């Protein structure tokens, strides 16, 4: 059977069996969002106002938390250098790992989002746009995150360093994604924002795997 599918099934099995399990990611996402009403107080219209932004920021942080382990486990137990030595192209390995990461974190986040829309009583008319923005945005998080996750290999206390490297890179995503909601509310449609998000997605799809693969080669040398 093809090496790709072998790798894919292994990654998926590992993701579901050990590392940041999807249920956990949702839980963190929800809890993090829930923290804000505690922090900023419960007025509904204010929550509605900040809702999309908060939800997006928390989605970002949730993805971040699970990102650190994307390569760390394989690096520490020596699997990563063996994957580098494997006949499969490293770029392909990276793509598979990113895909699995998105499936096990991004997708659950998207599924959990509507619940949070209710809790932060986000106006119904912008729900679809926000969901679209998540659908286009979360893969970008996984892609850009993979670069960071590869760069921190070896550096201890990865988690925080990772956030440092990745957060600035994903700020544009955040702006366009969270902006999409307002765009709808204030008349001018969100098409532009979503187009831009799509563009970013394609761009990072084209670039990040190479950067990540290179970073990994450096790490195991």
């Amino acid at each position, binding site marked *: 059977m093809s090496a790709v599918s072998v790798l894919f099934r292994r990654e998926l099995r590992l993701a579901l069996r050990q590392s940041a399990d999807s*249920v*956990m990611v949702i*839980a963190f996402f929800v*809890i993090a969002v*829930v923290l804000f*009403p*505690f922090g900023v*107080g*419960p007025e*509904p219209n204010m*929550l509605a106002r900040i809702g999309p932004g908060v939800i997006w920021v928390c989605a970002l942080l949730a993805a971040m938390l699970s990102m650190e382990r994307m390569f760390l486990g394989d690096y520490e137990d020596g699997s990563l250098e063996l994957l580098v030595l494997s006949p499969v192209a490293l770029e392909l390995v990276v793509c598979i790992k990113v895909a699995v990461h998105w499936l096990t974190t991004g997708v659950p986040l998207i599924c959990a989002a509507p619940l949070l829309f*209710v*809790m932060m*009583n986000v106006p119904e008319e912008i729900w679809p746009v926000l969901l679209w923005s998540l659908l286009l945005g979360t893969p970008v998080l996984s892609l850009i995150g993979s670069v960071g996750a590869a760069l921190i290999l070896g550096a201890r206390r990865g988690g925080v360093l990772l956030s440092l490297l990745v957060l600035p890179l994903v700020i544009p995503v955040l702006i366009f994604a969270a902006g999409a909601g307002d765009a709808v509310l204030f008349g001018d449609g969100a098409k532009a924002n979503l187009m831009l998000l799509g563009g970013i997605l394609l761009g990072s799809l084209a670039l990040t795997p190479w950067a990540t693969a290179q970073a990994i080669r450096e790490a195991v040398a």
Partner: protein
Amino acid sequence: MLHYFANPTRFQRLSRRVEPWLLAGMIVCFAAGLYLALFSSPVDYQQGHTVRIMYIHVPAAWMALFCYTAMAVSAAVALIWKHALADVAAKATAPIGAAFTFLALVTGSLWGKPMWGTWWVWDARLTSVLVLFFLYLGYMALRDAFDEPGRGARASAILVLVGFVNVPIIKFSVDWWNTLHQPSSVLRMQGPTIHPDMLTPLFLMAAAFQLYYFWLLLVRIRRELMANRVRALRHRQAAAE
């Protein structure tokens, strides 16, 4: 006393004898409570028929708190006296409690729509119940995050005890932060303040929920003990090989 029931076989015999009675009592209470609640209890002058949600919501909410307390107690017993049965009880209680909490949340928000015009408000009690729900989830998640069952048991027991601080917060949140939600009008020092025609069905439903809990608990514990016995057998085989 505790040690008397600790013996699994004795427990099994006892629970087999008790279960039918619990079941019967539960059915009776449910029947009576539901009848009174749905038909013969007065309609609230301002809430209309939605008030009937109370007969599910309130007992469920009480059970949510009760189950966590029960869990904490058995966890403590399990940790301090290394009580196998207590640990099993805690494990068996968790999902039931989570279910009750979820029920309280759902019925509550169903009630909230007509009453407060929204499914959800960031009201102290509502959110603290939500937190309680997360505590249940955390317990169950931690419990099965280990390959060695024993590890999960002890770790999660510690978690329950630490998390217990939340229960009083929920109970009294309404009095501490004045919020949309009802203040305690039944379980209070000065005695209940709501109409007896509502109180009777409420208590009947509460009793029904309680009985349901205990019945389910016994059943689940027995199943768990069976599983443990099977495991023990496997050990002996492993030793024999």
